[in-house]
């Protein structure tokens, strides 16, 4: 196998570029610092803080998945994305379901 082929092998992801990594790094830094400053300085009320930092974490998840992992819906990459979305569903049922059941148990045991 010649070396030229290596360049072409991108494995179901969009070709990674320096620009995408820089964008990902910039967004991640921005979202991380915002979350830490909000909590560190306690700039919002408790409930608002919980919602905001969850939103910031989800935003950073997407920033990293799109810019670092380069998931996409084209060709082979489509299957990776479908598996990812399915896992999202499983995680949602697992975590949401556990919290729901345990909350109800706690309330009923009081």
């Amino acid at each position, binding site marked *: *196998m010649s*070396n030229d*082929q*290596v*360049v*072409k*092998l991108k*494995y*179901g992801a969009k*070709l*990674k*570029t*320096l620009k995408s*990594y820089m964008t*990902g*790094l910039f967004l*991640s*830094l921005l979202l*991380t610092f915002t*979350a*830490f400053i909000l*909590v*560190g300085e*306690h700039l919002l009320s*408790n409930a608002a*803080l*919980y919602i905001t*930092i*969850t939103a*910031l*974490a989800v935003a*950073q*998840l997407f920033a*990293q*998945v799109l810019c*670092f*992992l380069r998931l996409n819906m084209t060709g*082979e990459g489509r*299957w*990776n994305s479908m*598996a*990812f979305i*399915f*896992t999202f569903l*499983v*995680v949602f049922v*697992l*975590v949401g379901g*556990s*919290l729901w059941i*345990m909350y109800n148990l706690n309330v009923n045991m009081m």
Partner: protein
Amino acid sequence: MTELVMEREMATAIDHHNGNHDHDHSHDDHQHHNDDIDVFGFWIYIMTDCVLFATLFAAYSVLEGATFSGPTLKQLISLPYVLTETMCLLASSFTYGLVMLSIYKHKRNFALFWLTLTFFLGLSFVGLEVHEFIHLYSDGHSWHVSAALSAFFTLVGTHGTHVSIGLIWMALMICQLAKYGVTPQINKRLTYLGLFWHFLDIVWIFVFTIVYLMGAI
């Protein structure tokens, strides 16, 4: 390594004997296609790992309040320290991207440099975490004190174990890259490691948000 390459080459030879392919070009497509499926398989493993972390997050969220009248996490953690850990891991995720870019350009020495840098950033992360754990343990806040601390050590420790395994893998890849240079095999292995490494950084987003930031509110 050599066995694997030989195996691949034998498979190639057999393919040619069976006349599956008219010319080299279609063979390359076939090879590429197989590699894509291999990487998809590894991606499925990563997704199952995601489910593992989800169960640990669920357990942590449920047990978080069960401190057995001990101190809450808020009194135990320092946010600047966690921010330093986060920066180490985020920087290592970024420099790993630079490894892959150097690989695409066949720049072995650049790739080696960035890979080594990634390794040391990851090592600093693990070092900081181990230091934090030892500190907690020696202050009497160990995992057998309360359910909340058990859940904390299990979740953060499992992530730390993954990063440590990633580091061993990375050390092996540094040796392989130095020895064999940029080959399709090395490219593929580094792609696997890249998926694993970026995934660990993504899990860490949720660890610092749910465990540390929400713990500090």
